């Protein structure tokens, strides 16, 4: 088991158009080994998407790294030229499956052309014949058990939502990336399609197209089935980080507890269980914050929580950002 | 995408190559030092060069009185008043008949002689095909007879005593109607089943059969090019065997007033006949005119303000006279006309040129109101019972008529966009209002202008009657302004194409039959004293009644030339030809006298 991805105290901020500094990610650290699937969960606006850009080394203004480091296979992504990142990192080392597959595909290009563009962008320089590229694509897309010819030769608008999502997955993993980041790949889909897509990702894992994945969603139950480890993110910080069983079945951080309490299912016995709810909204990331960021909404908050900045500590074999968690 | 890129690249490369090739090449252009560039007659696209087509449709130099390709029997010299020979020589003219002798040497470019057959052909077209343009034949000429004396043909035009009885008009025709080759057009007619309209559709632009010193070699929308005919019969007969100097004459077609001035100053154009403002400023660029000082040009026509004589208050003679007195003619010339109009004298007879002999200053002063005399105008208005009403800011509100009713504002029409007339009207309005006449500008679209003129739908309107300086001036001017021959009421759906102001209604008690009598009589008067007496009498009636207001005397045609390439132009100091471009009437004589500059 080798370390594929190491994130050390990564902090990111971006500037709004009027110069406001937003600290979207603060002190995020984790390590991923070959073959590991990490789930990151959190409410919308918690900094998940900014983190994704940071993990890919895409510090395109107005996004700037505040501090920390990201290492992929031991190579740092910090302070590198965008062109270097583009040629050496993207699609090959770190790749991304975005949410909303419909909008992610260039509407005026056929799937095969978009895929060919990816190959061309990371080619060794000499041009490969169209025929060869097509064969390579066909081989890869055949893995998904779909009408490959139809998909490759279609424009995105001619495909169904599921086909599009699968095309995106196919394109993103075309160059066998070391790490795949899946950013809410299923959140716009209904439950049935969601399952199909997840199955497909697992198919790729099984075939060793890629082996390491970060899966971002706000559906904790889904992570329970997909991820080995789960990190809960709140207001730009990881608040709990542990194995999926630990986090889902035995949450320790008050926020994770609240999230789990709010989950409902069709299981017997769940009927008329009062779900927990969290009042209030996450704090604005544009302000400098003192103390626990969840303190305002925490049901078990103590007066000192608002002053004392919390840091991650081991609680029951997982990391929790709460001094009072047990 | 790639395809688009290729197209874009291709287009860029091509256009770049295209632009790189932009050097001025002399190659196929005609040599400047053999070419005379003249402009100002042809403004639109040339369409046809058929001499039988209506003059307003045919292209230069077949239209108007241009004698370069087709020639008339005689040519009128507006400087001397002489009728100079062209295809014929004027032998005699009296009140009964006009006799012209054909030039025996005159021949067409195809070698055939120009004979009386050609003359009769063109003059009888009007009768033969009821053609409106050549229609004068019946009204003015009762008969054309030919006698051969000593192998010379004498053509006699008999005045139609029964109809118009006007030998002056026949003289005008002789120099206006160019003779076309009868044998050519009879053939065309025969080819077209004698259908005159079909014959008119022939453009006559390829090797036309002409009698004049130049012939058409090329034309398009940009210019018309004529080339000298070295075997022109007239060189020997009329010009002591000399050739006209320029080998080519080019008429560039400028559709924009701007282009004339620029090209004259750059030396691209040798002479033009259009209006160019502030000509004195261009003098340093080698542009000259007949006179070196104002008015620069030779006046030849009068621009009028026509008044609707049938509509109150303009039906009141005194009101009209007040209007004439109120206008500041000098200011108009200075501000609106670049000083091209000489000092204004009242009446229909000009105090310059050949008409001067009919001008009687004492009579004019006696009968006319003083011009530009606002006090006089005010007094006259007051005496006639008109009363201006001013508001508290001393701005004229309206005018009251003698019975105390408010007069409708008097609108002065002019076609919008004719900037010199617009300027004149603006100034007249200002001046009339200052004496208490409620006048307004009424600029209308050109179409509206031309429609309201003959129908009489106006209060006052700017007008230049289409009168050329010919043997018949100033009679033709009096006739155009005063004739009640075809009088019809205004705005009744009937049009008048002369005397549009509807002066002298024959069925009105105030009708003055003397006007018509004199208009009929003058063309028949031979004795110069009697003629002057008649003109003075008619002019006095005009001055007393003031049916229209003469506003300024301007040249009939402008004539400015550049000395950058060609010199030897006629001017005040060297008046060997009239102040016209070397294509009109006897003005073409200039062509034999031009020299290259710097030689």
């Amino acid at each position, binding site marked *: 088991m080798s370390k594929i991805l190491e994130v050390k105290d990564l902090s990111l901020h971006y500037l709004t*158009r009027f110069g406001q500094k937003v600290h979207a990610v603060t002190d995020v650290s984790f390590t991923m080994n070959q073959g590991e699937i990490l789930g990151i969960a959190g409410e919308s606006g918690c900094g998940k998407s900014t983190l994704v850009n940071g993990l890919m080394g895409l510090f395109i203004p107005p996004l700037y790294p505040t501090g920390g480091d990201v290492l992929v296979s031991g190579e740092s992504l910090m302070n590198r030229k965008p062109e270097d990142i583009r040629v050496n990192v993207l699609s090959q080392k770190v790749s991304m499956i975005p949410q909303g597959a419909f909008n992610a595909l260039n509407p005026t290009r056929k799937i095969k052309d978009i895929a060919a563009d990816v190959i061309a962008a990371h080619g060794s320089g000499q041009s490969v014949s169209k025929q060869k590229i097509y064969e390579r694509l066909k081989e890869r897309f055949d893995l998904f058990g779909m009408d490959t010819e139809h998909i490759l030769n279609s424009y995105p608008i001619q495909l169904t939502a599921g086909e599009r999502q699968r095309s995106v997955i196919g394109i993103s993993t075309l160059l066998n990336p070391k790490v795949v980041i899946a950013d809410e790949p299923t959140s716009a889909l209904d439950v049935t399609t969601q399952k199909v897509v997840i199955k497909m990702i697992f198919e790729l894992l099984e075939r060793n197209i890629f082996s390491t994945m970060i899966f971002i969603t706000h559906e904790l139950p889904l992570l329970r089935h997909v991820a080995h480890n789960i990190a809960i993110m709140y207001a730009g910080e990881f608040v709990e980080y542990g194995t999926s069983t630990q986090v889902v079945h035995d949450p320790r951080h008050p926020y994770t507890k609240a999230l789990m309490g709010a989950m409902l299912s069709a299981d017997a016995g769940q009927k008329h269980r009062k779900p927990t709810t969290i009042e209030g909204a996450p704090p604005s990331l544009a302000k400098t914050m003192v103390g626990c960021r969840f303190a305002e909404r925490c049901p078990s908050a103590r007066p000192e929580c608002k002053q004392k900045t919390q840091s991650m500590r081991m609680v029951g074999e997982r990391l929790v950002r709460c001094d009072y968690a047990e | 995408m790639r395809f688009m890129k290729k197209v874009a690249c291709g287009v860029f490369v091509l256009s770049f190559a295209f632009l790189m090739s932009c050097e001025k090449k002399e190659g196929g252009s005609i040599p400047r030092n053999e070419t005379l560039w003249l402009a100002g007659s042809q403004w639109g696209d040339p369409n046809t060069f058929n001499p039988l087509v209506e003059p307003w449709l045919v292209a230069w130099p077949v239209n108007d009185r241009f004698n370069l390709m087709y020639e008339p029997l005689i040519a009128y010299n507006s400087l001397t008043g002489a009728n100079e020979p062209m295809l014929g020589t004027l032998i005699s003219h009296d009140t009964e008949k006009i006799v012209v002798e054909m030039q025996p040497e005159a021949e067409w470019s195809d070698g055939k002689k120009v004979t009386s057959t050609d003359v009769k052909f063109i003059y009888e077209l009007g009768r033969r095909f009821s053609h409106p343009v050549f229609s004068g034949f019946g009204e003015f000429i009762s008969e054309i007879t030919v006698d051969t004396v000593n192998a010379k043909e004498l053509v006699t035009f008999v005045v139609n005593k029964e109809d118009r009885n006007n030998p002056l008009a026949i003289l005008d025709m002789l120099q206006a109607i160019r003779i076309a080759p009868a044998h050519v057009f009879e053939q065309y007619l025969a080819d077209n089943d004698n259908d005159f309209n079909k014959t008119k559709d022939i453009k006559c632009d390829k090797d036309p059969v002409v009698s004049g010193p130049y012939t058409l070699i090329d034309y398009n929308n940009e210019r018309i090019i004529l080339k000298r005919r070295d075997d022109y019969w007239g060189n020997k007969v009329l010009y002591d065997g000399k050739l006209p100097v320029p080998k080519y004459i080019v008429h560039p077609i400028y559709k924009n007033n701007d282009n004339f001035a620029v090209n004259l100053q750059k030396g691209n154009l040798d002479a033009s006949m259009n209006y160019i403002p*502030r000509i004195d400023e261009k003098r340093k660029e080698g542009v000259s005119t007949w006179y070196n000082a104002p008015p620069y040009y030779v006046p030849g026509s009068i621009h009028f303000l026509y008044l609707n004589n049938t509509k109150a208050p303009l039906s009141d003679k005194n009101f009209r006279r007040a209007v004439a007195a109120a206008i500041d003619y000098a*200011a108009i010339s200075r501000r609106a006309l670049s000083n091209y109009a000489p000092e204004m004298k009242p009446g229909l007879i000009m105090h310059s040129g050949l008409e001067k002999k009919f001008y009687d200053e004492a009579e004019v002063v006696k009968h006319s109101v003083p011009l530009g005399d606002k006090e006089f105008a005010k007094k006259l208005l007051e005496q006639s019972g008109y009363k201006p009403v001013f508001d508290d800011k001393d701005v004229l509100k309206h005018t009251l008529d003698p019975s105390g009713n408010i007069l409708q504002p008097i609108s002065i029409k002019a076609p*919008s966009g004719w*900037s010199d007339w617009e300027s004149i009207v*603006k100034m007249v309005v200002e001046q009339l209002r200052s004496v208490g006449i409620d006048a307004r500008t009424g600029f*209308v679209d050109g*179409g509206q202008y031309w429609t309201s003129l003959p129908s009489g739908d106006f209060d006052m309107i700017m007008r230049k009657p289409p009168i050329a300086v010919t043997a018949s001036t100033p009679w033709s001017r009096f006739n155009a302004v005063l004739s009640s021959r075809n009088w019809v009421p205004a705005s009744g759906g009937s049009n008048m194409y002369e005397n549009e102001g509807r002066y002298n209604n024959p069925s009105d008690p105030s009708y003055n039959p003397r006007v018509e009598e004199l208009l009929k009589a003058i063309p028949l008067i031979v004795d110069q004293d009697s003629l002057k007496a008649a003109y003075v009498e008619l002019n006095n009636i005009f001055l007393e009644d003031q049916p229209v207001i003469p506003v300024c005397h301007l040249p009939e045609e402008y004539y400015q030339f550049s000395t950058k390439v060609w010199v030897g132009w006629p001017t005040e100091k060297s008046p060997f030809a009239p102040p016209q471009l070397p294509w009109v009437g006897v003005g073409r004589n200039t062509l034999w006298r031009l020299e290259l500059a710097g030689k």
Partner: protein
Amino acid sequence: MLKLLRNLIKEPMFVIGSFLFLTTILAGLLGPSLYTAHPDAIDSYVQPFKQYELESGKHIKYWLGTDDLGKDYVALLLRGLQNSLYVGFMAGIIATTIGTLVGLFAGFKGGIIDDVLTMFTNLFIVIPSFVVLVLVSASWPEGRSLTLIAILIGLTTWPWTARSVRAQAASLRGRDHISLARINGATNLQIIFKHILPYLASYVFMVFIMQVASGILSESAISMIGLGPVGEGSTSLGVILNIAKDQGALTDKKWWGIFPAAGVITVMVFALYLLNNSMEGVFNPRLRK
């Protein structure tokens, strides 16, 4: 809203644009009362197209010279500015009103009404408005007034507004707040004016600005070819240019007859474009990044 306005004020394009435009408006409104020379007053003693005149070494009589008749160009420019603005605003108001009403109605109603109105709108878009303007102006029987020109421009340019407003209104039609208003019992008029128009207000305003600019441009173009307004006091900037060009100002190197008026038109239009673009940047969040 306030925040958007505050952002707008921070926008340099907006500041420059509004400064330029307010300057032209103020010049048009106050100019004639500050600069009292009458635009139609003819100085019969100066040369035609006098470049400028210094009197007694100090007092400048003609800042920008005179025209061919001896009229003061500054006074003419102020009058022209006033008239061009009048035509621009009038045309803008007419086009925006008609366009907004047609667009709102078509976009809100949908269905067959939308189809018919859209077809009608497209018809008028593809028939070049310049051509219609030329045809009508050229054949208008009585003197063309400023108002007539403005109305003609307004009547030929409304389809642009209608088209864009329709698209916006149609996208709003399906929004939930319209459905909510409906089940709140709001009438169609209430929905249009309370629940659609406010959303389009900034957009309509931007379109209005563009219509004013295009009105000014169209007027100057039509005047330039000699089909502009006629009659006392209706001198517009295009008319000044037309007269100056007819009188040979361009070819006689009398630049003061052409370029000040041309410059004023350009500055006005530029200012309006700046305003429009800066507002688009602020009101359209996609461009904000």
